[in-house]
């Protein structure tokens, strides 16, 4: 690990200006991913900007919206009564991620910015276009069980690992960002990007941009939301696939829907095509299945030394169908 300075600015503005003045600085929040990357040699910041005093951990309400401070811990967000009742998919997503210890460390601002757990990205002895542009992709032809089936490119087939981000994508959250040029908001669904020809960039944020808050809208449909995650063991594992969904059914007809998938792409995948199929149709398994199949019509699966990831397509169709059925049959 290379040496670095450590500073703890007293507020977000100072933190952002400090970062802007140091091109190789990194923000430190919970540290659960960054400190590991320092050890693995994936990143080499010469300054860590400790956000413990610069961001708030408070969760507050404003006109029916919920504002989650970037410093709020995953465990505290999941325990918040407002989150559990008004945005249950978010609480479920948070609780399905990591372990009790890690959820006590990880923050609202840091969680969406965690990086892929692609084994080749994390192994500095292998080629990886995300870690070392132009070096190639060792995942292609390697072990691809955890890799993308939607929106991947020839340069990168990694998936985004966050559960929280999938729920935020489905529930129309907004990200508040403070950058060197001031404040702005970004719809959460637009925060992450596809790899295209530059997989080094996971999000649309630039150096020095700081997430200060995550905003959840006043959303009646969000009360009828769920998150389901499928993984290789019952707890403490990343998603093979996951589904965040919200459904509104009136007299047996779907009147509104929100759907997002995790574990399938370089970003949390908002399933807009599926939502269009769902709305106005009868709340039946046939509808749910058709919606999921439509969303996955352009899926491209990978071969791999471990058998590849083609299993994700039927698994995701069945899981999405099951979650939507549960929302319709067992309203919260």
């Amino acid at each position, binding site marked *: 690990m290379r*040496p670095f300075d450590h500073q703890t600015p007293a507020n977000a503005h100072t933190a952002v200006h400090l970062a802007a003045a140091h091109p190789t600085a990194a923000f430190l929040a919970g540290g659960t991913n960054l*400190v590991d990357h320092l050890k693995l040699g994936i990143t080499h910041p010469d300054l860590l900007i400790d956000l413990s005093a610069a961001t708030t951990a408070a969760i507050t309400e404003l006109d029916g919206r919920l504002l989650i401070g970037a410093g709020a811990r995953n465990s505290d967000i999941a325990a918040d009564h407002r989150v559990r009742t008004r945005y249950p998919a978010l609480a479920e997503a948070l609780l399905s991620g990591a372990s*009790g210890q890690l959820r006590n460390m990880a923050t609202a601002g840091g969680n969406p910015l965690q990086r892929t757990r692609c084994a080749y990205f994390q192994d500095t002895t292998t080629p990886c276009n995300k870690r070392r542009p132009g070096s190639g992709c060792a995942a292609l032809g390697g072990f691809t069980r955890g890799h993308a089936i939607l929106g991947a490119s020839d340069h990168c087939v990694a998936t985004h690992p966050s559960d929280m981000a999938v729920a935020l994508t489905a529930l129309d959250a907004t990200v508040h960002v403070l950058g060197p040029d001031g404040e702005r908001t970004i719809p959460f669904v637009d925060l992450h990007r596809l790899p295209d020809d530059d997989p080094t960039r996971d999000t649309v944020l630039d150096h020095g941009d700081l997430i200060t808050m995550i905003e959840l809208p006043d959303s009646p449909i969000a009360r009828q939301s769920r998150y389901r995650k499928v993984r290789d063991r*019952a707890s403490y594992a990343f998603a093979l696939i996951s589904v965040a969904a919200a459904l509104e059914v009136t007299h047996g007809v779907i009147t509104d829907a929100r759907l997002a998938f995790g574990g399938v792409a370089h970003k949390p995948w908002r399933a807009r095509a599926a939502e269009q199929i769902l709305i106005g149709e009868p709340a039946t398994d046939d509808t749910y299945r058709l919606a999921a199949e439509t969303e996955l019509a352009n899926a491209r699966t990978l071969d791999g030394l471990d058998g590849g990831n083609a299993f994700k397509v039927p698994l995701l169709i069945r899981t999405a169908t099951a979650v939507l059925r549960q929302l319709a049959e067992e309203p919260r």
Partner: protein
Amino acid sequence: MAPAGYRRGVETAITTRVDGTTRTTRVDTRTTLLDLLRERLGNTSPKKGCDHGQCGACTVLLDGRRVLACLTLAVTTHDHDVTTADGLAPDGDLHPVQQAFLDNDAFQCGYCTPGQVCSAVGALAELAQGHPSHAGDITADPEPTRAEIAERMSGNLCRCGAYTNIITAVEQAARG
């Protein structure tokens, strides 16, 4: 002369309360809390299993909440309170969770045990505060069932596979 690009480590003084005693040390900013405890302060109760946040053997309580010492930089614990499994038994008086581990034979080699114990203390505090988990209904008050305990302790691996008795020990401690 140092090679081009070489940079000396950056040192900083930190004061951390460890197991009730205030300790001031000069540490390299790269030092983890785990290495501070084990290598600088001589407290070897938190263990280095994976050193990457995957095994839970280094679990300690930071301001009363369970965290991984291997992914916590020591500089971030300045002015904070750290409790290790050692500190749970001042003067050798065992904490109820430690006694429950003994009573239920909840370990074999014992390497993961200090982390398991700290994690269990943290998990029981979270349960008492009504924190939900993946194992239960998120809108209901959680009960310390075996399924709840297994889920809440999933961040602590035991290569001996003593899980069955670990869950029983945590159940006993939960009953108080």
